[in-house]
């Protein structure tokens, strides 16, 4: 294989890795929206918070795996508490109340992070064996990107198995289209909401820790990823996991190949893509919700 080809492949791999991480963030966002009817604006803040938690755990334990496991779980628990004691309380005020509340949570997280860790970029080092390149079939791949793709794929498979093979998954899929009806069939929907919120936040947390070694840890981390994830939910179709997956991968590839060919236009590409999709299908690619 020649050098140009190798570059394309490497670039594609970067895009794929970013796309998978985008999906980890967007899948929780879209499930939460489908069930609860709110696009939580705290989601990207939790993603960023997990990166800081990961940095802190790594400082203390010197163990990357501990960071990757403990930090997202901690953020997931925060998510559960946030749903149980804040968002649920705001429910009586309607979606606007809940929405404003999630903005509040995002601002609090943002300021807390700045107060505790400052605004400088922090570095999260991966273990020796995840650094560098591996050569497969004459091509060099960055090991860490492969690791991210593999890990995200594993999570994706587990998520799909739960959603399509278990009773809990059935309940979640039903609740995404009509939570009140699920409630009126005898399912403890508030509990399911809390669980989905927790799992969604946890997945965003996994993405936050996983991306930290690539982008470093800084307060602005939430902005780019957050914007992309929200666009993905809209373009993929509110509440649609397959839509979120497809668009995440497209976005990942667009951003990496976009940088390659027309660097100043890369972010614009996504907006063009979004505009085209929304003109053709206003409810998003897999959108089915009417309200």
């Amino acid at each position: 294989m020649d050098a140009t080809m190798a570059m394309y492949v490497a670039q594609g791999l970067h895009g794929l890795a970013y796309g998978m991480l985008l999906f980890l963030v967007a899948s929780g966002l879209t499930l939460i929206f489908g069930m609860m009817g709110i696009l939580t604006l705290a989601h990207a803040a939790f993603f960023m918070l997990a990166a800081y938690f990961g940095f802190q755990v790594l400082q203390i334990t010197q163990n990357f795996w501990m960071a990757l496991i403990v930090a997202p779980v901690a953020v997931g628990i925060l998510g559960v508490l946030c749903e149980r004691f804040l968002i649920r309380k705001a429910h009586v005020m309607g979606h606007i109340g809940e929405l404003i509340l999630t903005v509040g949570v995002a601002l609090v997280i943002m300021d807390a992070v700045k107060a505790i860790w400052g605004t400088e970029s922090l570095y999260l080092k991966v273990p020796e064996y995840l650094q560098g390149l591996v050569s497969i079939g004459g091509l060099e791949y960055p090991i860490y990107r492969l690791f991210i793709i593999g890990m995200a794929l594993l999570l994706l498979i587990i998520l799909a198995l739960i959603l399509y093979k278990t009773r809990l998954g059935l309940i979640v899929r039903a609740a995404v289209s009509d939570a009140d009806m699920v409630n009126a069939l005898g399912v403890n929907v508030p509990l399911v909401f809390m669980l989905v919120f927790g799992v969604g936040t946890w997945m965003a947390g996994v993405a936050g820790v996983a991306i930290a070694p690539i982008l470093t840890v800084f307060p602005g981390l939430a902005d780019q990823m957050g914007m992309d994830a929200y666009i993905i939910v809209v373009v993929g179709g509110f509440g649609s996991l397959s839509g979120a997956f497809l668009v995440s991968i497209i976005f990942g590839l667009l951003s990496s190949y976009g940088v390659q060919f027309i660097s100043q236009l890369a972010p614009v590409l996504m907006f063009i893509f979004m505009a085209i999709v929304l003109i053709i299908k206003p409810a998003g690619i897999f959108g089915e919700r009417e309200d």
Partner: protein
Amino acid sequence: MLLEVKNLNTYYGDSHVLQDMSLSVNDGEIVALLGRNGMGKSTTLKSIIGLVKPKSGKVIYQGKDLTGGHPFKVVREGIGYVPEDRRIFPNLSVFDNLKMGIKSGKAGQKASKSQWDLDRIYKHFPVLKERSAQRGSTLSGGEQQMLAIGRTLMGSPDLLLVDEPTEGLSPHFVKEVRDVLEEINKAGVSILLVEHNLKVAMSLANRVYLMGKAHLGFSGTVEELNDNPEIRAKYLEV
């Protein structure tokens, strides 16, 4: 008395859509709740099941106060709800829709007068068996109504609240739904039925409640209503 609803007052924002609404259902009965559009029939059912919260009044079921509880808690006590617009889960298969009606945990073990499972549902609704792998959204209106009733029956309720089951159905399906409700009642399930089709309602019900705007207008037996053209004219005829 199986269900007693006392002086419910329910609001949507500022509009007072139930004013001191009361009714009751005895064990084994079919009770019809009739009235013109927008009088508050659906809101009465929703207030019982907990989908809207009444401001005051009481919902007593088998002696237990269920007023304003979460729908899932009310349902777990043994009340089933078949909503007005059927609300089939469009992306789920017919089979999965039915599975959604199964109550898990303790509520699932609770004994009821009439135990239902998939086989029994399929026997009553053969069309659901034929279409079990199809997505809910692909069913016809009549089939969706069967599915909505079957799904709720999977939870083996003792009392079924059914909101306009024959609305928009062809005469064939109207009869089918009517007969199914009769069979279900014979099997031991009490029914509170909201229905626009007077013939269907009168042929099924033991007792009738008529609603005027937001309040109870008349209550009595089917015979009493039959003998009372003025009342019928006042609350039913357009």
